[in-house]
């Protein structure tokens, strides 16, 4: 069974925010919530790097662990989703997440946070696939349409890779070998754990 994962290639990301726009448009994400964001490290300094960040659908997701109403679940493909009908908007998940993925609509009164919203890997929610209810609450279910996440498919430089972990890792490996640098995959160790075996990473390169 495929295990869905994201990889952002910081050597290629040009901070165009195409992924952010694609996500907002595809799912009609409300004001105040960005399921995907582009973060620039050392902004303005020569050699700055940008990465596109969203829910990484962690193997051992901290949001799932802290949710007091147990609204999270993981699909067979490894996508971490949540049931908005069960969510109470407590915000624990947003504090637990190392990527800042869970967000809350900020248009409520008296500090009302509403239901949590996060990247679904374009896999919708627990409602029937492709239904109007699913679309309204979670956005479009592209996986059930045989497509990959809109952000990855729209990426102009193919910096953002999304899909079966083995396939995207192979694509990324080919790139690194071809160009001979830029093997850093920020967030992978945090999201999916350190590699259990295999060769040690090359000197001076991050896992």
């Amino acid at each position: 069974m495929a295990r869905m994962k994201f990889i952002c290639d910081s050597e290629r990301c040009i901070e165009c925010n195409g992924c952010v726009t694609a996500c907002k448009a595809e799912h009609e994400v409300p004001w105040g919530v960005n399921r995907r964001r582009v973060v620039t490290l050392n902004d303005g300094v020569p050699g700055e790097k940008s990465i596109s960040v969203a829910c990484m659908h962690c193997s051992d997701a901290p949001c799932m662990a802290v949710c007091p109403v147990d609204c999270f679940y993981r699909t067979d493909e490894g996508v971490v989703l949540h049931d908005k009908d069960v969510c109470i908007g407590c915000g624990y998940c947003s504090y637990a997440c190392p990527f800042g993925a869970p967000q809350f609509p900020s248009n409520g009164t008296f500090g009302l946070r509403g239901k949590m919203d996060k990247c679904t890997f374009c896999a919708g929610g627990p409602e029937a696939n492709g239904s109007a209810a699913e679309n309204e609450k979670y956005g479009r279910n592209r996986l059930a349409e045989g497509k990959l996440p809109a952000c990855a498919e729209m990426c102009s430089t193919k910096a953002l890779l999304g899909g079966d972990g083995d396939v995207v890792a192979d694509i990324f490996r080919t790139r690194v070998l071809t160009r001979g640098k830029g093997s850093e995959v920020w967030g992978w160790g945090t999201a999916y754990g350190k590699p259990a075996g295999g060769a040690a990473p090359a000197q001076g390169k991050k896992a």
Partner: protein
Amino acid sequence: MSASFRRTASLLVVIGACTLVSACAEKAQVSSISVKKPDVPAYRGTGTAYATTDWKQGDAASWEEQMRNRAVRGQNEYGRAASQP
């Protein structure tokens, strides 16, 4: 000891006992059963016209093949370049 005093004392004992065990009737405030709705796997498809036609909706193997092909075709330009004559 008068009968009325004994009655009052026993009444107080009963009230005290009831007060002590009153919390036992409280409903547990922990979630013992999950109320999440079951999700439908993505390979089942949507049954709508928006789905791509390169795979058979409802067939898990076909869906996985579609996911792999789409990732390679759409995201691996090294593969595309190598296939050129």
